[in-house]
């Protein structure tokens, strides 16, 4: 029996176990929306296409499944760009479906036409333009396969309007055949044996874990390795939660706003084992001076990551599921006590750095300190909530002061640093994991960038809690201006007559402003218990800095301390 291209897409969704799509209708996707309507397919309507793609991204990060979003041609597709680039930088599996003008109109500057595949080529793992309905099942099969396997990433499918209406004998392929795409699952076992030898020799070994552990769901294996050996661990922003905050081997985040102990350990280690990290410049700072005393070992599924930013003496290419299991097999043959004898003095040294200069802030003030807000939320949720942040100071304070205990609980735009990510991504996370407490922590700047999604949250009555850390500034910009631009606050002040509480209420989300320090724990605790959505606007001091801070161009051990 023949079905339409649009109906075929619904069938593809079912074959790929897609539970929900995030989308915004428009001219070129009307036929697809009619099929969604007929099939009563679960669909979330944000109020901007950027909201759709960030929500799909948040859904994917929280659940590990592929997030799906839909937009129409032209402006619909271009509104996805920031979200696709965000997902690309953080290797998030999403499939974005865009309408395109009809085949005869392509290339004629038709109404709402944009070269979507051309525009998205540098920010997608792969993309397609479907001009013939017969290609549709194969393309969908490949797209989902490419998005979720290997190093995950966004795949875009641009579909000409007439393809949705064209008829097809639908048959979903069982296999993909892509001779140019064969992700490396199992690499060279010998390399892991060499790593083991290096570990035996090392006096000051250090694990550096990243988002790859989340993506490959290998945090439990990494925890086994750490707990058997007692080797200290530091993390990138994306790796937070992979090793529990409470683990005595965990010394937190490193890099520009990393912990003193973590950055010192990275400076002094003689063997740095990067697991699913990409040695981003926010971590390495001056790359030539990064981990200057260490041999560097790099575990990654993407061969192009090895030696991209730092030279690795040994690269272990392959799925962490494979490589970490093999590594555990080897290290577990040596008793814990021997490992302990080898690494305990080194761990003690890092611990002494930690005790000497822990993360801190001014607790003796009448003002509500941002770090204290995060600590309060952390305590109330026992570090178990899904925390979705925006980008800026509040993001770094969250990374520093929220005690993440589980993987996939910090959803944040690490690579691209996308302001406006938080609110829509929180929607996606809550839709994907309705039983989890989802808290969106954002600044007053980034919040405004996708604040239209308050309506989505209200209309779905999604119990997302929104905490605005409000310093009436673009805080991170202002911090740099304070430190490096003689305090010239060039357009970083956001003092406004607008009222977030009234705005939230007008959009259907109950809200309050928190002004007194004494009330804070109590009010936040009440808010977190509320059934529906809620927004809290909290005023913090305008000139609070995120510290420690490694100024750009400096070494990791040259931190500006504070607190």
């Amino acid at each position, binding site marked *: 029996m023949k079905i339409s291209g649009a109906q075929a897409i619904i069938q593809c969704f079912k074959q790929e176990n897609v539970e929900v799509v995030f989308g915004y209708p428009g001219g070129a996707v009307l036929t697809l929306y009619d099929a969604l309507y007929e099939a009563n397919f679960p669909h979330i309507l944000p109020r901007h296409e950027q909201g759709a793609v960030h929500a799909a991204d948040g859904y994917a990060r929280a659940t590990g499944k592929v997030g799906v979003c839909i937009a129409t041609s032209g402006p619909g597709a271009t509104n996805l760009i920031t979200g696709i680039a965000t997902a690309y930088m953080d290797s998030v599996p999403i499939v974005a479906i865009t309408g395109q003008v009809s085949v005869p109109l392509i290339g004629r500057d038709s109404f709402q036409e944009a070269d979507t595949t051309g525009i998205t080529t540098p920010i997608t793992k*792969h993309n397609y333009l479907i001009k013939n309905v017969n290609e549709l099942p194969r393309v969908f099969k490949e797209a989902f396969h490419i998005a979720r396997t290997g190093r995950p990433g966004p795949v875009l499918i641009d579909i000409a309007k007439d393809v949705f209406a064209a008829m097809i004998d639908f048959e979903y392929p069982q296999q993909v055949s892509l001779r140019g795409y064969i992700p490396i699952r199992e690499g060279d076992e010998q390399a892991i044996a060499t790593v083991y030898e290096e570990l035996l020799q090392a006096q000051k070994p250090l694990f550096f874990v990243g988002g790859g552990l989340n993506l490959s769901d290998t945090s439990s294996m990494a925890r086994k390795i750490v707990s058997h050996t007692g080797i200290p661990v530091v993390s990138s922003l994306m790796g937070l939660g992979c090793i529990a905050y409470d683990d005595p081997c965990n010394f937190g985040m490193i890099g520009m706003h990393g912990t003193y102990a973590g950055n010192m350990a990275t400076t002094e280690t003689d063997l740095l084992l990067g697991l699913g990290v990409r040695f981003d410049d926010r971590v390495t700072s001056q790359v030539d001076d990064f981990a200057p005393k260490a041999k560097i070992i790099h575990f990654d599924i993407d061969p192009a990551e090895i030696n*991209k930013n730092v030279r690795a003496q040994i690269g272990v290419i392959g799925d962490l599921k494979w490589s970490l299991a093999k590594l555990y097999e080897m290290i577990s043959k040596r008793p814990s006590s021997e490992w302990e004898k080898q690494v305990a003095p080194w761990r003690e040294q890092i611990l002494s750095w930690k005790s000497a200069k822990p993360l801190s802030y001014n607790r003796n003030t009448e003002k509500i300190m941002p770090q204290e807000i995060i600590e309060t939320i952390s305590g109330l949720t026992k570090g178990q909530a899904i925390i979705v942040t925006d980008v800026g100071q509040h993001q770094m304070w969250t990374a520093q002061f929220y005690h993440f205990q589980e993987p996939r609980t910090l959803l944040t735009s690490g690579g691209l640093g996308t302001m406006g990510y938080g609110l829509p991504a929180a929607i996606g996370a809550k839709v994907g994991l309705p039983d989890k407490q989802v808290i969106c922590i954002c600044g007053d700047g980034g919040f405004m960038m996708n604040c239209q999604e308050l309506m989505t949250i209200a209309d779905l009555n999604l119990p997302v809690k929104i905490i605005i850390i409000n310093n009436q500034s673009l805080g991170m910009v202002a911090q740099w201006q304070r430190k490096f631009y003689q305090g010239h606050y060039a357009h970083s002040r956001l003092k406004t007559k607008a009222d977030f509480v009234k705005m939230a209420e007008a959009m259907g989300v109950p809200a309050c402003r928190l002004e007194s320090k004494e009330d804070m724990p109590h009010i936040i605790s009440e808010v977190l218990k509320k059934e529906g959505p809620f927004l809290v606007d909290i005023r913090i001091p305008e000139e609070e800095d995120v510290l420690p801070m490694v100024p750009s161009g400096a070494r990791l051990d040259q931190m500006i301390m504070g607190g």
Partner: protein
Amino acid sequence: MKYTLAVLVENKPGVLTHISGLISRRAFNIESLIAGYTEEKDMTRITMVVEAGDECELEQVINQLSKLIDVIKIIDLTGQDRIHRELALIKVTAPPARRAEIVNIVEIFRAHIVDVNKETMIIELTGEESKIDAMCELFEDYGIKEIVRTGRVAISRAPTPAKEM
């Protein structure tokens, strides 16, 4: 240093966009790039001359290109025993009085005259880049109106085809 890569890709629409997009995004230095059909209907072969500071930089180019879904295989022909050629068409000012000299040069270079009119001649030359450069230099005295060059194609001398290397 210049490196010669043979890049085997799927013969599909959009492949060249993906390749050129990657080259610009990663800021790779590509001196020439030429694509054409191969012994297999569904495969296109691209010969690329890459300018890279060292092996490390080249490794990045190869690794990043390999990540493209439609790239089937990349072979570095630089160190291999290989043959490389380029084709050039050169339009030279050729008034009747000077044609004999030009024909002489063409014969010395084993080039061909493929068209002639009252004012100009078109000369076809196949060879390594240096040979083409040398002939162009000679023709400069006569006045070159136009040059079109294909960029380098390369093949290894070994019996094994690139797709099986």
